């Protein structure tokens, strides 16, 4: 009996070895290892996090907080994943409705804000809501989970159009998990409280905004940028991630950096810009949004020289079917955005750009810097959102503020946070630590 069990195990291992050999033989070698099949099963959950910028928790009593601790953010993403799976499993039909924020925000909710608007077909693909019945019908930049007795309502919202594609998921355990998640995050988070412009009827702001508020003792630490490549070994090690066999690559020194290449791949690292191009044609793969987004997210996950969290800032779709995903860094849950000077100087739109086609990364460009807080230098917060808006009112002819958020504008090596205010497609930065 013992030997029979052993034989079964040996037979299974042999089958698995044959399967993996086949995989390696017919597919690209990069990224394959013994555990790669395990990674596939966890991909969908973890990669959703690259599409969501912020997770807010509405406590239903006018108080909104943001999940900033990784454990809270991840468990919220996992819950969203479970809820979306239920839509597929129950083959639920959606219905469209108008979003009345003052009504929606009366109830406890988990709110997932995307850094950019995802087209309805793209978010349907990303969340595997592929049937005509289940597909998301609105371009989405916010997803809301509203727990209730016996289930959860999931709303895919377009903030600008104030419309939502909603599903009623009848699953009591999901509702319990959602309420438990809200309580859990509420108990563990100690960061800012957020104010809803809709609940406060602040008509000078767009009504879908959540604005951070703080007490008089609030202080902010200075942030500094630093190169992630200390020396040549770092540059080479970063480049090796992109070669199937790093030993076969050639290295050429140029005036301000290095070029690494083999017959398919070129990696250039010069003046703080790290650029990878893959010239190998892979036209037989699917060009589904999901596969392309996964490819971009996977490269971010594999690049261990990205020291900060990232969020999806924008997406471009070209006529040839290629996608370009733009990512920016995050620090302490706040976005770090490159200043216009930094963008012009380095010919970048965001800190990271990933171009994909047929589920393969064809180009990857990143500003090879990271950002961290300096312990030694901090300043009191002197300008709250009202003072920032007042400054704008006094200096310009602003009528309505479309967006206001706390962020880091990386305009020099060291900086403090600023209010990033968007009005009429123009962005203004107002320092938080100056009057």
């Amino acid at each position, binding site marked *: 009996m013992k030997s029979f069990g052993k034989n079964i195990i040996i037979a299974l291992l042999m089958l698995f070895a044959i399967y993996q050999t086949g995989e390696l033989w017919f597919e690209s070698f990069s990224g394959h290892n013994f555990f790669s099949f395990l990674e596939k099963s966890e991909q969908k959950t973890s990669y959703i996090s690259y599409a969501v910028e912020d997770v807010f928790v509405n*406590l239903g009593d006018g108080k909104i907080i943001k999940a900033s601790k990784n454990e809270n953010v991840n468990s919220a993403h996992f819950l969203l994943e479970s809820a979306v799976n239920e839509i597929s499993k129950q083959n639920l039909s959606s219905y469209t409705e108008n979003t009345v924020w003052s009504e929606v925000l009366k109830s406890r909710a988990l709110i997932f804000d995307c850094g950019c608007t995802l087209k309805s077909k793209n978010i349907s693909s990303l969340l595997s809501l592929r049937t005509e019945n289940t597909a998301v019908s609105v371009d989405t930049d916010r997803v809301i989970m509203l727990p*209730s007795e016996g289930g959860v309502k999931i709303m895919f919202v377009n903030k600008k159009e104030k419309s939502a594609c909603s599903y009623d998921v009848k699953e009591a355990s999901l509702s319990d998990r959602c309420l438990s998640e809200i309580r859990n995050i*509420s*108990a563990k988070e100690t960061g800012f*409280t957020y104010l809803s412009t809709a*609940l406060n*009827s602040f008509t000078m702001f767009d009504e879908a905004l959540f604005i951070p508020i703080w007490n008089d003792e609030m202080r902010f630490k200075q942030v500094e940028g630093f190169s992630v490549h200390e020396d040549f070994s770092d540059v080479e090690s970063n480049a090796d991630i992109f070669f199937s066999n790093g030993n076969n690559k050639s290295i050429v020194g140029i005036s301000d950096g290095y070029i690494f290449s083999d017959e398919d791949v070129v990696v250039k690292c010069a003046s703080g810009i790290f650029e990878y191009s893959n010239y190998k044609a892979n036209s037989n793969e699917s060009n589904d949004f999901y596969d392309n987004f996964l490819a971009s997210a996977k490269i971010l996950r594999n690049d261990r020289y990205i020291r900060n969290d990232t969020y999806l800032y924008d997406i471009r779709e070209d006529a040839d079917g290629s996608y370009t995903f733009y990512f920016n860094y995050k620090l302490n849950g706040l976005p770090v955005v490159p200043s216009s000077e930094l963008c012009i100087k380095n010919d970048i739109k965001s800190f990271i750009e990933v171009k994909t086609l047929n589920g393969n990364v064809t180009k990857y460009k990143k500003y090879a810097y990271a950002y961290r807080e300096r312990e030694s230098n901090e300043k009191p917060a002197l300008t709250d959102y009202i003072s920032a808006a007042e400054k704008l009112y006094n200096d310009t002819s602003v009528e309505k503020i479309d967006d206001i958020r706390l962020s880091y504008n990386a305009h020099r090596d060291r900086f403090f946070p600023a209010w990033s205010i968007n009005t009429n497609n123009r962005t203004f930065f107002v320092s938080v630590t100056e009057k």
Partner: protein
Amino acid sequence: MRKLIFTAIFFVTVFFVSSVCVNAEVQGFKITSGISADKSSEITFDSVKVISGTAAKGTDISITVYEPYTAADGSVQYTVLRNYAVTVGNTGIFSQSVSLKEGKNYVVVVAKNGDSSSEVRTTINRKNKILQTMLSQSIALPGGSAW
């Protein structure tokens, strides 16, 4: 002496009655978050409340936090804990973080603009954080959904 006291009481009464009659409500004054203008008392676990609202430009907002206590004669008296003052600017919005002590805090928000004046009073009972942790493990927080 009695005539003098009655005269004094009469003039004081006339003064207060006339001030109530003359003072109109401050235009657009409304507290939108931090405290509820509809409730005479509320409970919180937060040590700081950010009181926000709207009012016409130039309105002076003063927020005073009092600690109520019972005097020896049994009457309720108030000690001033903190005072805050803000003036509403171009945006027509005000916001002020207010520190609360554990126990009862009597909060009075006064808005003044020229001859107009408005007032909101409430008692905020700040409970211990440990109690919140205990409660959150056993019961649901307020704000139920009803879709």
